């Protein structure tokens, strides 16, 4: 964990750190890496990863339209909309 990695992480996670947070971030993350590294001593040879605590299978939904248009309700608290569209700063492809 170094500044370069931290910079990559803040870019991937799209997070601006406040100056105060930025000062602590590297030390904090190093301490966290030390913490999570504590599990490295566990012998997991031949142990399959467990993604989910339950032995269940995915239920399947019938292909039916159950939702009615409710744009006004969904956009009532939206930060910025126009003509039913959400607006963001110009995207260049």
């Amino acid at each position: 964990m170094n500044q370069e990695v931290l910079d990559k992480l803040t870019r991937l996670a799209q997070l601006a750190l406040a100056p105060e947070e930025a000062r602590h971030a590297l030390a904090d993350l190093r301490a966290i890496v030390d913490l999570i590294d504590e599990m490295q001593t566990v012998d997991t040879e031949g142990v399959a990863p467990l993604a989910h605590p339950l032995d269940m299978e995915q239920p399947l939904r019938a292909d039916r339209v159950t939702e009615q248009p409710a744009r006004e309700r969904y956009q009532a608290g939206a930060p910025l909309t126009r003509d039913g569209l959400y607006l963001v700063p110009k995207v260049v492809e």
Partner: protein
Amino acid sequence: MAHAANIAALRHGLDAGEYSARELTQDALGRIDATNPLLNCFITITAEQALADADAADARIAAGNAGPLTGIPIAHKDLFCTADAPTTCGSRMLAEYMPPYDATVVARLRTAGAVSLGKTNMDEFAMGASNETSWFGPARNPWRPQHTPGGSSGGAASAVAAGLVPLATGTDTGGSIRQPAAFCGVTGLKPTYGRVSRYGMVAFASSLDQGGAFGRSVEDVEWLLQAMEGHDPQDSTSAERPATTRAAAAGMTLGLPREYWDGLDAGMAQCLQAATRELEAGGCTVRDISLPHTAAAVPAYYVIASAEASANLARYDGVRFGHRADAPKSLDDLYRRSRGEGFGAEVKRRILTGTYVLSVGYYDAYYLKAQRVRRLIRQDFVDAFGAVDAVVAPVTPSVAFELGTVQDPVAMCRQDVFTTPASLAGVPAMSVPCGFCDGLPTGLQLIAPHFEEGRLLALGAAFQRRTDWHLRQPSA
């Protein structure tokens, strides 16, 4: 005093017309008004809606079609979506957010006629063990207000302990119900993963989050669980299981894991020993067992919870809901500043950690490793439950600490050392009050196999028949 009564008594009082739901609600709202400025356990108080709901409950009671919780005051942790009240998740990001729908838990309790008084304080996005990461300031412990009520469901535990509401919903990802219940001297149940619908519960870590219940006694918690639980087709991880019914406690064999004595305060250890003697006196056998991978639970939990959180919290981008930075210069600027301003330091640490453990080059060493450890931890419990009916353990290494005294984020994570194993395994666990250390409550943790909440209720109720820790109340 209605507010000190248990749910059975309240039910009787309402049905017998000793008091109305409106009177109960007004009484509770009055105490909230008086106490909340000190305890800060509510982020939102929905007085007007509560009184309307109480009137509807009174009408139902009068018509003779009241359900078990009709007219009973409750409070929701502020991450259950409510269509009639803001749902902030303790975050600036959602400080103004009004969901367009009710969470399944909220809808079920609404249908049951329970009267919600408001939304309780919590650590931001349920990340924290002290309530101090809340954008709205920490809730406080009614036993000693300069101390933490625990977290993340600190407001709920505090409100129940202070007698503001008899029941409250909460969620537990790595201990967020059990630890505040222990710190505040109330009963808190984290059901089996899949027992209670997650639909409408703002996600922290999807494979760990589980809704649950706070009450002043095991019996009260049982009333709330029965109204919350059950299959929900809108949650793919919701289990189809018969409703919880209480098992018989007498004759159960209980396992006391030797790894759970590590780092336990001396006073806490004494409480735990005394509690096991009570259980033995109630007809249970207690034996020493081993859950060998316990020490790896906190690191594995931290990896998995952070990884899931890093994706779950990506939707807060300032576009469709939530906080949006002023005058963004570009799309990246919109994202970075909206998220940078909307999230607090702890949430950011978890997002960055989660991003790290999932990124190229680290995925196998951290994320997959943690999942392998998770399997070992679950297997620990499966093996243990081959020999014992339930596990007894401490909930926390120490009693509630003073606000502001645990500054180190890693030290804060270690608060979860005894609660994260059950979370990773997905098994149900409950905290019941079992004594006091330095004048602050301590909790006894009971852990059962998947979907055997009935054993926890039986053991907890048996324990509470023999002890009166749960009846103690903080002085006004």
